């Protein structure tokens, strides 16, 4: 089987700023160059490598996730894939028609109606007019725009805008699908619909390259992943492995003001089996540090908490006093905590600390460890209950239908 997508030793260099923005700047510069007062070659530091020696392959049926922080080179990679940019060195080879779910409403003109914009955006994305006409009703139905299709787009809400754009892109029928952060458009209902659509495309055998900050989406969709850092591959492998590595890096980079006390110090907090865990499953956190307390106050106790960083509230906290764990007094210490992560998918911070129950203060605390909880089986509500649901008796057995097929009755040929 030939790969659908090949990146072979790709390097991409950008210029910092622009050398000559206008002819007014260019003419004196050229004059100086001729006279010889300025070296012909520009200073090397004006360039930087956005991508350095990136190689990967995507086979049909594979879903590749690309993760990394801002400026890691994710968007550059996608732009090289879609031919918007050309590599400085190396080879990008694609085998088939590329459909990019990037800037799905980028071509919209505010003064045109939704209908006109469907044709415009569709054409920009590479669809023929006849093709758009054939799929028009389906696109409108998927977007849920309804009667507003003949209203100028400037009167649309931003959600409607994005929904219509996504619907056009989702009907591209590409051989290779490239997705950049567009799964977060619209409300929760539309997001689920969009996600189902992408899942359907991926399951249909089209190779997918996905860039997202929604790590749970990456974990769920991707068969493999690469983690980029400063334009180079830091690690590659399974999605979970890359996400673990990524979160680990984030934790190392975290510099926040911590409560410290010279007598008890936390030196590290690590997740032994990785920082990513599926909702409802167990994870193990190891905390170590040193202590040198001469006269330990009775009110002090070791403690541990899981914080929801969005609200700042503890979703769970526990003290050593409750569990019979003594306060470390002298020398090195190490705790191991195993937690059943019965929380909804999302990002959580884990933190160990010493609690003073008299003053209700943290005496000293460890760094926060960012944990990503993924969705395994979908549920609503605030608590994971690992529901096991079996049907002992059913009046009329119903075949399982993938969610994307619920959305409309009509199917494209």
């Amino acid at each position: 089987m030939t790969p659908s997508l090949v990146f072979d030793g790709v390097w991409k260099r950008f210029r910092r700023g622009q050398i000559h923005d206008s002819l007014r700047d260019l003419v004196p510069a050229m004059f100086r160059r001729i006279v010889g007062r300025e070296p012909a070659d520009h200073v090397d530091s004006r360039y930087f490598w956005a991508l350095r020696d990136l190689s990967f392959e995507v086979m049909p049926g594979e879903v590749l996730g690309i993760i990394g922080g801002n400026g890691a080179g994710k968007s550059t990679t996608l732009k090289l894939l879609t031919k918007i940019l050309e590599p400085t060195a190396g080879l990008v080879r694609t085998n088939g028609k590329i459909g990019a779910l990037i800037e799905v409403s980028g071509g919209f003109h505010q003064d045109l109606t939704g209908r006109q914009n469907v044709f415009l955006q569709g054409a920009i994305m590479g669809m023929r007019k006849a093709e758009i006409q054939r799929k028009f009703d389906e696109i409108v139905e998927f977007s849920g725009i309804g009667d507003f299709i003949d209203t100028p787009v400037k009167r649309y809400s931003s959600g409607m805008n994005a929904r219509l754009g996504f619907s056009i892109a989702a009907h591209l029928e590409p051989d290779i699908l490239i997705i950049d952060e567009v799964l977060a458009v619209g409300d929760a209902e539309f997001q689920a619909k969009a996600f189902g659509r992408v899942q359907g495309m991926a399951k249909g055998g089209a190779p997918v390259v996905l860039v997202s900050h929604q790590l749970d989406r990456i974990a769920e969709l991707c068969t493999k992943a690469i983690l980029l850092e400063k334009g180079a591959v830091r690690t590659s492998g399974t999605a979970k492995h890359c996400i673990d590595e990524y979160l680990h890096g984030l934790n190392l980079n975290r510099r926040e003001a911590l409560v410290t006390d010279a007598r008890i110090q936390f030196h590290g907090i690590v997740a032994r089996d990785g920082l990513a865990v599926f909702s409802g499953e167990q994870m193990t956190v190891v905390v170590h540090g040193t202590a040198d307390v001469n006269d330990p106050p009775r009110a002090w106790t070791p403690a541990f908490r899981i914080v929801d960083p969005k609200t700042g509230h503890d979703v769970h906290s526990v003290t050593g006093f409750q569990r019979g764990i003594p306060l470390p007094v002298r020398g090195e210490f190490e705790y191991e905590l195993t937690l059943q992560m019965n929380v909804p998918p999302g990002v959580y911070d884990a933190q160990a600390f010493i609690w003073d129950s008299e003053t209700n203060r943290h005496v000293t605390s460890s760094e926060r460890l960012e944990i990503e909880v993924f969705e395994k089986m979908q549920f609503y509500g605030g608590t994971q209950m690992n529901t096991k649901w079996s049907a002992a008796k059913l009046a009329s057995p119903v075949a399982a239908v993938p969610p994307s097929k619920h959305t409309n009755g009509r199917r494209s040929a």
Partner: protein
Amino acid sequence: MVVTASAEDSSRRYPQDLVARRGRRPSEPQTLHYGSTTGMTSTVSLERPPKPISRRDSLATIVAEVWHSRDLVTQFVLRDLTIRYTQAVMGFAWALLMPILIVGAGMMFRVVVATLSNTPLEGSSIASLAAKALPWAFFAGALSNATQSIIGNSNIVGKIYFPRESLPLASVLAQSPDLAVALVILTVILPFIGVGLSWAALWVIVVLLLLVTFTVGCALVLSCANLFFRDVKYIVQVALNFGVFATPVFFEPQMLGRKGAAIMLSLPLSPFVQAMDMAMIRGHNLLDVVTVATKKGPVVVWSPWMLAYALASAVLALYVGVRVFRRGSSRFAEMA
């Protein structure tokens, strides 16, 4: 640091010649082998920018790509027209505004010249002014729109891939309904001001096709240049404001005398402008030489060579335009 052609690598051909790839940490390698399709390979330091791998598309590829995206060009044209005409209260009257203004300015110019030189104003001069105003209005309108076409669409140029030629091409084509409307109205008016059309007027079709080709070529170069040098649009505006004097729109070439006429007619846009007058108003076959008798002797105001000149400049402009544009378009997304 030094660029050296290495003999042992010369057998390698792009893309297999990218040898500095695996097995080295991305932060370490400072040398990179690369080459071109000619088989030559060189070693350069990565601290110094390696020459970009030049990928030269053949003309056939480019034409095929643009032809393949004709629906996109149509959509861009429709977008431009819809915005221009549905928003404006005057609607299609806009199409006539530019030519009318040019004819008005030309008439003032003619009256001044006639008064100063004490010669009577020719009756057919308003008709020939109008005929010559049309190609100029088209050229000026198309170029000022097209120069901005890439910058004005930078939001999509930087995000979505499509043949970028479609943008300036659509800008030029969006100007053609204006030309068509003005041409039809002029044709209808001509009999009323005493100008009869002859079969020679069919030359107008050839001339306008050449004009569109020439304009597309210029539009490709200028839209690209405006992306790299943001002040190109001001230069274009100034050039278009005064460029009308570099064409025989406001006056007849014979007014400048024999030498002056020759110089005037050798300017790039003159054949198109002059041909409109010759074929449509004067009814001359463009394959004939046309001379006008003046006080200082006969002056050639048209020759078949000018048709060849128009053809050559149209083809050359398009070729240069396509080449320059393709060369620049690989960097559009970085500049836009």
